[in-house]
């Protein structure tokens, strides 16, 4: 079967610095990928490249077998959605209006949002715990609430492929787990997939089934999570010794505390 997203010999760089070379990925329908690496190694740029927001130097990106760059942008927006790290606003708007932007690709320019679009947005807001805050002005939200709102807008967009840049940032422990569960459940049907940049190895191990490790532009590791997340790989990835601990809750990775 054609994978949902595939790259062949993908070279990516930003401002003359290489990020990856010759990347061959196959992201199957229903799979969940974690992208791990140190600060500045290019995780965000790689994610933007996969979303068609950053040009690549060589190779190709195929979305459901089609060349990404050739897909009309409105159709692309119905298939692929991305959570960006920064959320901008210019003038004050309400929470519900922000979530409704996710329906934009489904509506002709002159059309108003239909009842079902508003229904989509409301249920996404309820899922991320923002029910009852629909008419709040955006500038009155906390950082964590804004992050959850951005995820609700993405759920409202309802793409087949979710690309997420640090979905757990700004979130407290409860919401980290809650939001990642929602995202995992969204891919349960088998038709959807997600690729997320994470900094917490244990969240990656818990919620993802594949991982991509960016050591340096020439060296990458990717595959099923059990094969890729090893003490050796993670120690090399983070430049700090990592230990795998067996607990009654399963395996947990912890930095070695040697001081």
């Amino acid at each position, binding site marked *: 079967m054609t994978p949902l997203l595939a790259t062949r010999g993908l070279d990516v760089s930003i401002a003359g610095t290489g990020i990856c070379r010759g990347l061959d990925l196959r992201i199957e329908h229903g799979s969940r990928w974690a992208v791990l690496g140190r600060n500045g190694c290019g995780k965000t740029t790689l994610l933007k490249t996969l979303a068609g*927001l950053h040009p690549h130097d060589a190779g190709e990106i195929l979305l459901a077998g089609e060349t990404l760059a050739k897909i009309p942008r409105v159709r692309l*927006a119905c298939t692929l959605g991305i959570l960006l790290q920064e959320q901008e606003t*210019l003038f004050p708007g309400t929470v*519900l*209006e922000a979530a409704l932007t996710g329906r934009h690709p489904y509506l002709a*320019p002159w059309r108003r*949002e239909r009842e079902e679009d508003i229904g989509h947005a409301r249920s996404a807001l309820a899922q991320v715990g923002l029910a009852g805050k629909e008419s709040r*002005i955006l500038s009155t939200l906390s950082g964590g609430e804004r992050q959850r709102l951005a995820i609700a807008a993405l759920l409202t967009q309802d793409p087949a492929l979710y690309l997420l840049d640090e979905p757990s940032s700004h979130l407290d422990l409860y919401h980290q787990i809650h939001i990642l569960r929602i995202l995992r459940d969204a891919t349960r049907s088998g038709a959807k997939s997600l690729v997320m940049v994470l900094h917490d190895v244990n969240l990656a191990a818990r919620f993802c089934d594949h991982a991509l490790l960016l050591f340096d532009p020439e060296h990458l590791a990717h595959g099923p999570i059990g094969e890729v997340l090893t003490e050796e790989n993670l120690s090399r990835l983070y430049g700090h010794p990592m230990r795998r601990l067996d607990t009654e809750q399963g395996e947990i990775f912890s930095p070695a505390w040697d001081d």
Partner: protein
Amino acid sequence: MAHPRSALNSSATLLGILALAGVASLLFAIATGGVSVAWGELWSILLGDRATPNYILVTELRLPRALTAFACGGMLALAGALMQVLLRNPLADPYILGVSGGAAVGALSALLLGLGGIWLTGGAFAGALLSMLLVFTLAHGRGAWTPTRLLLTGVVVAAGWGAIISLILSLSPDTTLRGMIFWLLGDLSQASHPGLGAIVLALGLIVALVSARGLNVLVFGELKARTLGIGVDRLRLRLYILASLLTAVAITIAGNIGFIGLIVPHLARLVVSHDHRILLPASTLLGAIFLVVADTLARSAFSPLQLPVGVMTALIGVPLFLYLLRRSPS
């Protein structure tokens, strides 16, 4: 308010009320002046009774002037609302990219040479287009075409025009200076053909409305808008050109009327909506009403002396805006 669909419907009602207020402002304008026209007589004139004493005054002087003010106010407010989103800057106004400076240099050159009529309007429009072309070409340059780059280019080009305007003013004989100052402050006393402005305004509003939901998304950032299927570069270019053309036409007809394009869109955001599908027509109507009322007061407050309308827009607008800003929640 919580339900966006009902919010849209109530906003539609609000637009209807604004449209009625627009008609009322036009009636106020044609009834008021050095000679006041009673409502009964006004009605007969509007029904086409040529025997009425003030028939010529109303149909050939006041009505064309009021309609021109309506169209120009609408164009300036619409252009301002677009510029503020496109440049991601609440301080942006229709003149920020230097269109008015180019128009002023064209118009003042004509006045300096003792030319009037078609040369004055032609000079203003040519200057506005030249400035627009200059800014877009220079801002594109070799690098990317970002709002910041465009804004900086526009501000610098506008400063250049400002210097040329000062040069022309200092070279001009006293006899032409008064006309120049009036042009620079905005003046509707020469207005006689409202049709052109009305057509440009109507077409402009239609183009803007088709892009309105795209603008709602663009508020959340360029990248976000791209990922939601919006061709950001094309949307921006289309609306920059639209806003510049609206400004060029308005300034050619009415001179350099300040303030409306900056304040009216904010007024509309404060009291009406920030949904561009409502905001753009509401700004247009508010700007139209505002200029009609300001022009009527400018020509009647110290009659027979006529003030430049630009003075009146600021005298009414500043306190009104400050009051609304203080009253609004956060």
